[in-house]
């Protein structure tokens, strides 16, 4: 069906990003906001705004009934969930189907299939995609047997989990019983599902993910990979494509594994298959699939020239994959820095408030996705992402030079930001060499202790 009006059930930079594509496609936008976001830039940019609830996201951005009611009442044909919030909750596509609305994303079944980490593991194995040695455990005896066969170190993970909750590192097998109980209790409290499973812990892995698009009828293509190894406590900070210093054989295997996995689900829409890669041993394991648009999608767009949001809309409207997509050759390199309102001097605690002045960079190969301008409010209720600075160029060294200049030109005052942290990463020899693993940020802090104790002033002006 034709999509003429989309209700956007999200906020921040991704709301602004979706509005931009809708305008280019001549699609009207209705933005569902919380009371805290009435005066946000995306609220000014949308054709219409409806306030669906109070600032607290459980009563607004996570309220599927209010979102769907608002979509029907404003005459929207479709709902775009963005990322986070309701984007991977099966209830939203279910309510959309009951109400004759198009959900811009995968089916409810696909969301459930990849949201349950154990089901996803089984599906990956069935699609001959390597998974980290491990498996489900339902008793302590079972867990101890499996743990002995995996060997330490290993991870206890929550079946319904994510974001580090319910996740425990077991360095010595004798600690397993206590950590198992702790992980199950945390998982039960956070996700209402106390099931846990065990996995071998890959200490020095790289986080590499593959962007896929599926038409929902079995056709799936990939649009290259992204390396997201620069992380602090499981939060991605810098992402790039292509993944540096990866053999072409390994790259090819990752891409084909992602396609096989998504194809086995007849996946519909844009999705990302995440892997942990041991580049030294040329091995990799499936981690999980994210059934949504990702924060870091612009690096893929920068090298392929494809508008992923437009492709999501086309697939949801039943038009399938655009012709020529599969033949797209990724050329060049793109790197993204996530600019967050967080204070390095306060252990990177979120730093909400009102932005006084902001200067976002411009220049050749520079793209900025943001909802923040001078005077914008950064409410304390949501994530602290202020915007993303994406540089692209013919190769990694040109791209890095452009990104360095862009970060140097970025000025944010009123809230503390992590701009100076990014400048330090881009000047670090290990990062410049490329191919860092997820242990990079702790190593950087060990080399440069002043980075985690930077004064608020340097953050403010940097």
């Amino acid at each position: 069906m034709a999509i003429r009006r989309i209700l956007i059930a999200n906020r921040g930079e991704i709301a602004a990003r979706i509005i931009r594509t809708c305008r280019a496609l001549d699609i009207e936008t209705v933005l569902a906001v919380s009371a805290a976001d009435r005066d946000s830039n995306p609220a000014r940019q949308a054709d219409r705004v409806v306030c669906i609830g109070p600032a607290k996201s459980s009563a607004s951005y996570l309220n599927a009934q209010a979102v769907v009611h608002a979509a029907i009442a404003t005459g929207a044909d479709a709902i775009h969930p963005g990322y986070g919030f309701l984007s991977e909750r099966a209830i939203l596509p279910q309510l959309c189907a009951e109400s004759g609305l198009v959900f811009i994303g995968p089916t409810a079944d696909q969301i459930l299939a990849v949201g349950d980490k154990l089901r996803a593991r089984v599906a990956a194995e069935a699609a001959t995609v390597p998974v980290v040695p491990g498996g489900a455990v339902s008793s302590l005896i079972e867990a101890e047997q499996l743990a002995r066969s995996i060997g330490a170190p290993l991870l206890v993970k929550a079946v319904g989990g994510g974001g580090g909750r319910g996740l425990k590192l077991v360095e010595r097998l004798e600690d397993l019983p206590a950590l198992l109980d702790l992980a199950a209790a945390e998982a039960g409290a956070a996700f209402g599902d106390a099931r846990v499973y065990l996995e071998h812990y890959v200490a020095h892995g790289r986080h590499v993910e593959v962007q896929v698009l599926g038409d929902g009828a079995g056709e799936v293509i990939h649009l290259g990979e992204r390396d997201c190894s620069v992380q602090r406590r499981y939060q991605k900070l810098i992402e790039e494509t292509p993944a540096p210093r990866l053999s072409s054989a390994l790259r090819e295997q990752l891409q084909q594994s992602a396609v096989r996995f998504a194809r086995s689900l007849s996946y519909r829409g844009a999705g990302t298959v995440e892997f942990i890669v041991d580049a030294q041993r040329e091995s990799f394991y499936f981690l999980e699939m994210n059934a949504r648009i990702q924060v870091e999608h612009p690096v893929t767009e920068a090298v392929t020239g494809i508008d992923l949001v437009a492709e999501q809309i086309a697939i949801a409207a039943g038009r399938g994959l655009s012709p020529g997509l599969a033949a797209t050759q990724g050329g060049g390199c793109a790197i993204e820095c996530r600019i967050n309102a967080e204070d390095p001097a306060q252990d990177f605690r979120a730093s909400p408030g009102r932005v006084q002045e902001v200067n976002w960079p411009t220049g050749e190969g520079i793209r900025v996705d943001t909802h923040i301008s001078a005077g914008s409010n950064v409410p304390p209720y949501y994530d602290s992402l202020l915007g993303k600075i994406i540089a692209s160029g013919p190769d990694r060294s040109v791209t890095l030079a452009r990104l360095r200049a862009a970060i140097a030109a970025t000025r944010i005052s009123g809230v503390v930001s992590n701009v100076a942290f990014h400048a330090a990463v881009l000047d670090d020899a290990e990062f410049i060499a490329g191919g860092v693993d997820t242990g990079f940020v702790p190593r950087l802090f060990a080399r440069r202790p002043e980075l985690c104790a930077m004064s608020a002033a340097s953050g403010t002006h940097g």
Partner: protein
Amino acid sequence: MSLTAAEVAEIMRLLEHSRFDELSLEIDGIKLHLRRAGAAGGVLQSTEAVAHDAASAKPAAGGAPSGAAAGTAALARPTDPSLTDIASPMLGTFYRAPKPGSPPFVEVGAKVTEESVIAIIEVMKLMNSVRAGISGTITEILPADETLVEFGQVLMRVRRDA
């Protein structure tokens, strides 16, 4: 069997006078789900506080979206300290009467107490009753019947009892 409108109204009245916030009833394939609007009635905002917020906020940009514009218009009234706004506790469809054809819960001039039901807001077929949350006299009813109201939108104004 089926429930008549009068019976539904009676069940709603019973819930109103009970100490429960929510009622689910299933009889012979009929499902009825009633819920009070928040445990403590409608969200209250005094015009005084609202006027203060409006004055401190920066002016809306030109081409402000209709929702925000409507909100701003509702906030722009001169301050009358004896008037209190009753704001919508949720987004949904505003109903002035318990069912089509029956008299509205309240009209302008009606006396209300904190417990008085003044409207229904329907969200995805779930009926939520809205209470006045204040004692006084209704001076204004803003949204048209059976239209979309947003969270925080002013539904009615009440002159508080002296």
